[in-house]
């Protein structure tokens, strides 16, 4: 096991990772930009190293600075959090060159999953259904239109090197197809290292269901149940639940087993998330696999009692997974709300000093956050300031608990998305468990 680990991310996830490392008796090194000098991760870590100015290009994305910080502090491994380094192949290679363990999946697994089409066809050859669509990247307008016509509208355009919703566009009508195709191509060229668009049938009313996977170097793989992440805005998740409401046990078991079979078939090691699209009739399709720790891992931790980050470190250190599938029990129901520093209904970012901060407590409530009274929410970074997670014996009780927790969460000085989360909790459609991708549209 490692003696000292450097955390190459900021905000709530840096703090969350420090918690696990402390429990494991591992020393922690935080790295920070000049704008994060007074951040909670800096206060909590055993050591802290300033790696650059506020601009992430010169700090949190500065490989040389981060690796140098690991060398001067004697850290043997780097945890990349869920930020831009967590799925960055060049960074993983730089770590290998610098003789530092990257806490994440292997270069091979990451390379495969970073290519959304390659991952899709790996799943298909493992016997998992995939969404109908083009089998390769499409450059030409004419070919793209032919494929779209064959699939039938609506279709969805996706970026082969996608991430964070970049390049994803739904085209409802044939008349808009070529314009949207052009825009999507431009967007991937601008933002993604690996440009290229492919076309898929757009599955209306599909739910976004994902399975948390743990797999060690000996290909011992288990899953920690599912999460429902259907409620999204601009392809960014807002609310996550575990387990997904209204799914038969048989189907759940089938999807979980398929995810486990898939990671074994590709020789995966590390933790990860297999994402599916689930149709109302119970058919499901492989969507993609994420190789990083995800924001919403917390909701799985709430219902399984496992520490996912700890398992990630155990696997990265080359140790065996401490659990078998039979050791995993999902108890009750968990819900997570992502609290953003933003105007709750116009969604514009809100920055400034936090003048009052009183998080909710009580039974079944967890808050993962890096803010505190007197903290400054600056405009340089992600607007996620807190994750509020609750668990209760069943879904209705979890919703009631979430409403109670949201209602007593006090954050002053900045605007937050708490009111929007509250409105979703009160929505009859949400309460019924009828949730699909278009549900959130009424809130935009």
């Amino acid at each position: 096991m490692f003696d000292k680990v450097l955390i190459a991310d900021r905000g709530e996830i840096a703090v969350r990772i420090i918690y696990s490392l402390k429990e494991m008796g591992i020393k922690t090194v935080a790295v920070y930009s000049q704008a994060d000098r007074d951040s909670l991760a800096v206060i909590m870590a055993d050591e802290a190293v300033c790696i650059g100015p506020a601009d992430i290009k010169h700090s949190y994305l500065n490989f040389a600075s981060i690796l140098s910080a690991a060398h001067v502090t004697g850290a043997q491994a780097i945890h990349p959090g869920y930020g831009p380094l967590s799925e960055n192949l060049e960074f993983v290679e730089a770590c290998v060159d610098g003789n530092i363990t990257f806490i994440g999946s292997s270069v091979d697994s990451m390379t495969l999953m970073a290519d959304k089409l390659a991952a899709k066809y790996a799943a298909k050859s493992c016997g998992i259904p995939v969404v109908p669509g083009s089998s390769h990247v499409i450059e030409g307008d004419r070919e793209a239109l032919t494929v779209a016509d064959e699939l039938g509208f609506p279709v969805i355009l996706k970026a082969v090197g996608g991430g964070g919703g970049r390049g994803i566009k739904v085209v409802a009508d044939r008349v808009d197809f070529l314009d949207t195709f052009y825009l999507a191509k431009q967007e991937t060229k601008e933002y993604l290292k690996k440009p290229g668009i492919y076309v898929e049938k757009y599955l209306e009313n599909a739910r976004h269901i994902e399975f948390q996977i743990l797999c060690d170097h000996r290909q011992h793989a288990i899953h920690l149940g599912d999460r429902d992440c259907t409620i999204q805005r601009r392809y960014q998740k807002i609310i996550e639940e575990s387990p997904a409401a209204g799914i038969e046990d048989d189907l759940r078991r089938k999807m979980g087993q398929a995810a486990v079979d898939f990671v074994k078939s590709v020789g995966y090691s590390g933790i990860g998330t297999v994402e599916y699209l689930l149709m109302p009739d119970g058919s499901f399709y492989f969507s993609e696999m994420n190789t990083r720790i995800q924001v919403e891992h917390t909701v799985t931790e709430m219902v399984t009692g496992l520490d996912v980050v700890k398992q990630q470190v155990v696997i990265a250190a080359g140790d065996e997974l401490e659990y078998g599938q039979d050791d995993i029990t999902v108890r009750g129901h968990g819900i997570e709300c992502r609290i953003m520093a933003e105007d709750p209904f116009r969604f514009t970012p809100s920055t400034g000093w936090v003048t009052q901060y009183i998080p909710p407590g009580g039974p079944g409530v967890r808050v993962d956050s890096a803010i505190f009274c007197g903290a400054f929410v600056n405009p340089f970074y992600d607007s996620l300031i807190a994750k509020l997670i609750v668990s209760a014996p069943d879904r209705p009780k979890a919703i009631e608990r979430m409403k109670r927790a949201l209602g007593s969460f006090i954050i002053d000085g900045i605007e937050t998305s708490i009111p929007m989360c509250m409105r979703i909790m009160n929505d009859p459609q949400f309460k019924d468990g009828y949730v699909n991708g278009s549900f959130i549209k009424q809130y935009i």
Partner: protein
Amino acid sequence: MNIKEIKDIIKAIEGTDISEIDVHSAGDRIRIRRYLGEVSVPERKSPKSRKKDGGVPDNVELLSVTSPLVGTFYRSSALDSPPFVEVGKEVRKGDVLCIVESMKLMNEIETEVDGVIVSILVENGQPVEYGQSLFLLEPL
């Protein structure tokens, strides 16, 4: 809450010394802030003083030379060679003051102004972070 109710609240606090009021009513929330006299910005509270702050004195006439990268600080180019500078030495713009080793690369740190070295803030072989003060110079 309608515009008349909001106007009423504003009228109610006029002539008082209330600078901020938060009203919650039937699910609505409104906050009215007024600046009375001096503009006050909440004090920035740091729960713990910064780690590794080089200890720069409050002397406006001195300039500090900071590290542009994370690495290990060396005062000379090799173990057996003399330091680039000592306290009291006069330096010219472009002179090398020290080396910061990062990722096995030796980065020479130069002064951007003419001056006299007043203080060397870091020990030879010590790790330095981005923006850390390394030298204090009295400009000429």
